[in-house]
């Protein structure tokens, strides 16, 4: 029997040398006359251990990491192919504390399977949800998703089942599923990991969505910053077509669904759903006024389900295991799990999938191990560049949509970016405005002009020019952007700015009473 070694092809692992490592392992095995099967999996999400390799042993998979090319001969000498002792040995993969303590539902197969092997996918329970869905009526599928409590994992957190129901009940000659894979928020990479590590899961989720609402065509709008995800998706879609999971006759049930991948072109605003639709139609990514809702008049004027990658990838397990199984994770109206992404200044950055209700402190310290620099963590930006900066005093608030909204923050896509105490929060507030000015689509004035004026006001504030006046101006500008912008870009840019002012006034040269 061939020995099996897993080396991730995830672009994060590759960015630390995984491809070169795979080559080194293959040539060392050849040199020693050992027959070896190299499988390219996704990442388990423990990036401080990447490149992390795994070996199949009779007792299960064991891990070694982080492995550099020059470690390879030593690993062979130590008998790593049989799980031998070595300084880089991490023991059985599933027993690594960071992984063991998670609830992996949506990303259960990422890092486990060879991403492009449909055999691996099937062996790990893949397409069980679709098999069940083809025997159900559209309304039954929608009801299952509604009962699961799944809300959009892209940011706005709208209930997925309700959105699907609107599309189902709208009559049209053509309907679409549009997967928003324009994950542009800094600190988020769960879409990328899912697409690179388990592309069939997204394909299955989209197909189920198609069956649920009567859509025969799906688009994945993928950001151009993800070249590896692009290659993997194209290959997986081709395989799914060849094996009858996509195309004119899904699983022989007489229902059609197919998927096209479209690349974005470096515009953050295209992560906003209506800007994404414009971009898919080949236009500038300019936000549309709502109503009409995209569920009624969406892509090319037809009813369209728009969900992000993680929402759609959560659907297969809901259909496979039933709504209650999924709903039983979480708290309040935040049901199921969210892949939290730990990034920035942390000792153990990575992806942690957990039920809602965990806290920042648990994620930052128990999982993240505190800061990479060894200095105190001062601020954490939660939910991307439009998310609030959370200070240590709020690290114990439960991560659930409502609890976060109540403190003027949002969970968004689940990205956490940690900063140590060397961060200049006035600089970060200025950056938020600068980013908005750079990325605004330009359609509405509060966002387009407000962000440019915001940079200027913060500059004057920092220069110490009539501080009280500048502060009043900045607050009023933030009000205008929040209330007057057409979409979340202008509407939420004040979140990082105001939270920085509120919690870290000293960085702006003001005291707390002035900031409020």
């Amino acid at each position, binding site marked *: 029997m061939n020995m099996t070694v897993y080396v991730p092809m995830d*672009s994060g692992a590759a*960015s*630390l040398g995984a491809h070169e490592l795979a080559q080194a392992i293959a040539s060392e095995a050849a040199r020693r006359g050992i027959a070896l099967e190299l499988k390219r999996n996704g990442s388990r999400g423990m990036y401080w251990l990447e490149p992390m390799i795994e070996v199949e042993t009779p007792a299960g998979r064991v891990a070694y990491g982080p492995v550099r090319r020059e470690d390879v001969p030593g690993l062979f000498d130590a008998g790593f192919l049989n799980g031998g002792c070595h300084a880089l040995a991490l023991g059985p993969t599933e027993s690594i504390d960071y992984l063991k303590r998670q609830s992996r539902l949506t990303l259960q197969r990422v890092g486990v399977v060879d991403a492009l092997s449909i055999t691996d996918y099937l062996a790990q329970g893949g397409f069980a949800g679709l098999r069940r869905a083809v025997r159900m009526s559209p309304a039954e599928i929608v009801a299952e998703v509604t009962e699961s409590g799944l809300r959009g994992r892209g940011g706005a957190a709208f209930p997925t089942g309700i959105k699907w129901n609107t599309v189902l009940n709208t009559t049209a000659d053509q309907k679409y599923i549009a997967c928003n894979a324009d994950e542009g928020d800094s600190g*988020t990479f769960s*879409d990328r990991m899912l697409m690179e590590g388990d592309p069939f899961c997204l394909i299955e989720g989209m197909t189920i969505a198609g069956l649920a609402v009567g859509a025969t065509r799906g688009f994945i709008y993928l950001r151009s910053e*993800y070249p590896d995800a692009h290659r993997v998706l194209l290959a997986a879609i081709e395989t799914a077509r060849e094996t009858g999971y996509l195309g004119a006759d899904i699983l022989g049930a007489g229902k059609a669904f197919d998927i096209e991948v479209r690349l974005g*072109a470096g515009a953050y605003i295209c992560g906003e759903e209506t800007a994404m639709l414009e971009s898919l139609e080949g236009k*500038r990514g300019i936000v549309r006024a709502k109503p009409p809702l995209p569920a009624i008049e969406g892509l090319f004027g037809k009813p369209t389900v728009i969900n992000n990658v993680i929402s759609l990838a959560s659907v297969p397990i809901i259909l496979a295991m039933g709504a209650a199984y999924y709903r039983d994770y979480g708290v309040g109206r935040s049901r199921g799990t969210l892949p939290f992404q*730990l*990034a920035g200044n942390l000792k153990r950055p990575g992806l942690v999938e957990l039920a809602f209700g965990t806290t920042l402190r648990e994620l930052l310290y128990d999982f993240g191990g505190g800061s990479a620099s060894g200095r105190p963590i001062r601020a954490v930006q939660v939910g991307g560049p439009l998310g609030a900066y959370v200070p240590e005093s709020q690290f114990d608030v439960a991560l659930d949509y409502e609890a976060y909204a109540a403190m003027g923050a949002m969970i968004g896509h689940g990205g956490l970016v940690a900063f140590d105490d060397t961060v200049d929060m006035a600089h970060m507030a200025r950056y938020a405005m600068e980013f908005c000015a750079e990325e605004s689509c330009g359609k509405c004035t509060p966002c387009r002009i407000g962000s440019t004026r915001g940079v200027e006001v913060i500059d004057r504030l920092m220069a110490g020019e009539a501080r009280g006046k500048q502060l009043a101006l900045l607050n009023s500008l933030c009000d205008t952007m929040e209330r007057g912008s057409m979409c979340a870009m202008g509407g939420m840019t004040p979140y990082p700015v105001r939270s920085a002012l509120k919690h870290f006034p000293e960085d702006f040269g003001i005291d707390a009473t002035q900031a409020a």
Partner: protein
Amino acid sequence: MAALDNREFIQTAIDGHRHLDGALLPALHAIQDGLGWVPPEATPMLAEALNLSRAEVHGVISFYHHFRTTPPGRHVVQVCRAEACQAMGASALEAHAKRSLGADFGQTTADAAITLEPVYCLGNCACSPAVRIGDRIVGRVDATRFDALMAELREEATA
């Protein structure tokens, strides 16, 4: 001569994509993937083929950061400016990159080897700071690593 070749290439790229719904972006990607940029002659050709005004086509090209209307150097190097990278020293890396290459964002080095661009998130936030060289993502890049990578690129060019 080169312009004529460009025209032929652009026409082929357009013909390969005009059947798609919303064909403009896929056609522009094909043009830039092949030529490294979107030359000015592409605008009237796209407008004609897709039944759009030149202003509409120009509006799309200029809206998206990805599309370039000047030819790049032999390699395009993007440095991530987003928050997760900033938390790990991206601002210092950005300053170093500009200084050592003698090029600002959007500019190409004097030897035409490297075009420097900003990027907002490569999804490599857990291995920050990150850069992208062509289609290759590199993680945990500091000034020393950056210089070594640039030297590699220049060696490739002269080899």
